[in-house]
């Protein structure tokens, strides 16, 4: 059974159809990448899958469980987590406080009223492990606003990982990063345990081909093509329509 299944999903804004009958699946352990030109509806698709936007038609399920009608925050307990295209963090809080909030999100004590959050050792330990793993331990006492853009991007991914997802949706994880940061981030994504399946929107073709098990091409709100990386790379129509031939060849070289 596929981990995440989207079937016949349609979404329109005031008559403008943004997504048309989109179906896609993410298998357990799979790293599935969505590509497509600007305005293809990629981020809208993410917002529909995660429940930020209501959908007009279709179904979304995780491990066979229908989640399309669940409010967005409860999908996290179904194992779904996401990052945002634009950094969406607690800018005035420190890096450590950001992680604390993320780690606590799935704890049973998240509604406790009087015991200090810092007294929960398991939360402290998990936070520390994450900060070290993501190379942000030295930065833990700085506010997120003080970090560089690339570091903020890492915090963005780290927070999503902290909720222990089985399916992680990354919306352009390397956008706005320097080439060095892009390489570092790609490595970190590659190193993620296979127990976390990935659905990733990405523009950088080098990143796409170094991560993808499967690629889905979205165009004008419809699934244009879905297949193995080689199939996509060698598909003449994709080359012609999306990349003008150039980007794919550069990635090959």
């Amino acid at each position: 059974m596929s981990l995440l299944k989207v079937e016949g999903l349609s979404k329109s804004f005031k008559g403008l159809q943004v997504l048309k009958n989109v179906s896609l699946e993410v298998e357990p352990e799979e790293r599935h990448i969505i590509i497509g030109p600007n305005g293809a509806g990629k981020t809208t698709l993410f917002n529909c899958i995660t429940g930020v936007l209501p959908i007009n038609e279709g179904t979304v399920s995780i491990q066979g469980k229908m989640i399309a009608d669940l409010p967005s925050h409860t999908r996290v307990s179904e194992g779904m987590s996401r990052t945002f295209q634009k950094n969406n963090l607690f800018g005035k809080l420190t890096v450590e406080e950001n992680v604390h909030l993320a780690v606590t999100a799935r704890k049973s004590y998240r509604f406790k009223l009087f015991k200090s959050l810092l007294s929960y050792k398991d939360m402290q330990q998990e936070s520390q492990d994450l900060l070290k793993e993501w190379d942000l331990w030295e930065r833990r006492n700085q506010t997120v606003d003080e970090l560089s853009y690339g570091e903020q991007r890492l915090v963005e991914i780290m927070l999503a990982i902290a909720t222990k997802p089985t399916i992680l949706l990354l919306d352009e994880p390397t956008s706005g990063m320097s080439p060095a940061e892009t390489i570092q981030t790609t490595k970190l994504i590659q190193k993620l345990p296979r127990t976390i399946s990935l659905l990733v929107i990405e523009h950088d073709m080098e990143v796409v081909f170094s991560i993808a098990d499967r690629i889905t091409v979205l165009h004008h709100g419809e699934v244009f093509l879905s297949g193995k990386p080689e199939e996509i790379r060698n598909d003449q129509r994709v080359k012609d329509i999306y990349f003008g031939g150039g980007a794919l060849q550069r990635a090959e070289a």
Partner: protein
Amino acid sequence: MKKMIFPAAIAVLLLILPVMLTSYGIKLTAEVFIMSIFVLSLGLITGYAGLVSLGHAAFFGIGAYTIALLGKFVPNTFVLLASAIIFAALIALLTGFLFIRSSGAYFLMITLAFSQMLYAVAYKLKGVTGGSDGMSVAASLDFGFGPISGSMGLYYVMAVSVMICYVLLRMFINSPAGKAIIGVKENESRMRALGYSVRSYKLLAYTISGGIAGYAGGLYAFYNYFVSPDTLNWNFSGQVLVMIIIGGVGTLFGPPIGAAVFVILQNYISSYTERWPMIMGVIFVAFVLYGRGGIANLLLLAWRKISRRQKEINSPALNSSEKISKDETKGVTEA
């Protein structure tokens, strides 16, 4: 341990303060304490949950009227104060469930409308509440060792109350739920993406805040022996909002400072001129324009400056090396 010195000093100061005050001063300070509790409650939702209400007097009034109305039948102080808290919290829970869907100016307007509605009810229900004449409080403040009515007794009850509220709120904002509420204020959509039920946390903050405001109202009824619809009026809600802004939004020690400054200035200025709201207005505008973060922020900045100077005096060697490195960086940037 070092952290405890400051709060302990404040507590001791509050306990010995009456010795230095006239009886009028004691009475006034007791009122400051009641207002402090009320302002703390509004500060919780305004400063930590990001909910700006212009109708918080509703819960203060509910607490006060609970004591006045129930006091005729149940003379027990514990039962009365507990009912004031529970009743106010319950109303906050029910109304919050509806109000919290809106935010910003809409939330402000709907809370204002609600409190004005209660005001109208208290005003019109002459048979029950005495209407605009208000009603006297039959029950007396008695914690099991005789009725407390002198200003000294009232002072200590209010002082202990404000300290308890402060400590409980301090614990609350450091708890998992409190931290989550701060997260909600900082970034709702990220909190949702992390799996937090944003609405539940707002409602939690609103309910706790309502309960504390109810407690403040209850204390006020005992303090004043008299309750009028003015305790529900938006005028009062507005004053409390002014106290928060003068004291400092988003801190716990700001609101009591704001309450103290407001109540004392109001008393002081109004003995000279009837136009005291005008002077208060100027002070308020000055704080909004130039003193963001209120007195709490100013104190914090001053404290940092003093402690930095202290460090410089204690370790001149470190200071000079710091200066050198500063000069170096300056040189680099200039180059």
